[in-house]
């Protein structure tokens, strides 16, 4: 559900950036969504499509890049792949790990003219 309100925030952000850069039309919006950001990338994609249709950015398509979850073990400093917060270090089976990737939720670029 929060994907919809985030989609509205993207519209505001992109509209502002397009204005600053004198873009008349925006054709692509590139977004990074981390695997453990708390946002479902597929739901977010659909939310963006719905919100874009009813906005002044109706020509734009959304391109979402999913970024993987990466944890760093605070005990042995090893980096490893995580898909949830209960993942323990495969090297020493230790908790906790520090999340160093996968929490991204950002607009990286827009393409337009």
């Amino acid at each position: 559900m929060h994907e919809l309100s985030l989609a509205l925030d993207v519209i505001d952000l992109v509209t502002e950036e397009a204005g600053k850069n004198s873009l008349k039309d925006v054709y692509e919006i590139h977004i990074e969504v981390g695997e453990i950001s708390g946002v479902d990338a597929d739901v977010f994609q659909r939310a963006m499509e719905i919100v874009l249709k009813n906005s002044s950015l109706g020509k734009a398509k959304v391109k979402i890049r999913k970024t993987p979850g990466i944890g760093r073990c605070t005990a042995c400093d090893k980096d490893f792949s995580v898909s949830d917060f209960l993942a323990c270090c495969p090297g020493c089976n230790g908790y906790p790990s520090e999340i160093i990737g996968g929490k991204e939720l950002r607009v990286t670029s827009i393409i337009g003219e």
Partner: protein
Amino acid sequence: MCETCGCGQPDEFTIRVPGQNENNEHFHPDKQGGHYHTHSHDHEHEHDHYYEHDHQGDRVIEINKEILAENNLVAERNRGFFEGRGVLCLNLVSSPGSGKTTILEKTIRERNEGYPVSVIEGDQQSMNDAERINKTGVPVIQVNTGTGCHLDSKMVSKALKQLEVGNHGVLFIENVGNLVCPALFDLGETKRVVVMSVTEGDDKPEKYPYMFISCQLCLINKSDLLPYVDFDVDKFISVVKKINPTLEFILISAKTGEGFEKWFDWLDKNRKCHVT
């Protein structure tokens, strides 16, 4: 759809003070502080072929901005407001029905010292919770999120303009009952408190880890029902510790008062830390 202007923005919300039900403030957040409509473009289907165009003048603009940047910016402003007044602001989050409002009623009535307390109530609809808090005599304001599933920092900022918040006191923000969405939205609170009732099952942290990661205190409520349910307090705490090792726990019952002394001490300790 917004009943006042019919603009259909999904993030509309209303702010109401008990006793002034008809004077609904109507607010649609946007950057100009005003009110805008994004549906002027009613012929978008004619443009479905745009990818076939050769856009010779296309430019790539690097942005690299957090989607939550605007929310986080306003949250920091709220945080500055609280710090400037020495106010301990607590964002109370939980599933619906965990007992947040009952805990608040008891806390306000029986707190250790007579420090000022005020409350922002968040719900999709109704004034029920604000009316309950209003009976305790402290300033309260209701934010109805409409279709929204969480409070955000702009709603809190707007509510603060109408709410009397006493210096060196405590502001409780009772978020919309939902263990998912409120986790992502910083309101500018000093600390976030998750309320968990023992009737909910002890595997909630595994199912909803984002919420438990983002909090500093967990109130385990309805402890009087422990003999009748399968909730294993030790197992619950051990699972939460794996995802949030620094989370504090207090076992309470808003019905019998068990654990409230510890809760009041926690409030005093954190209030005094915040004042100094």
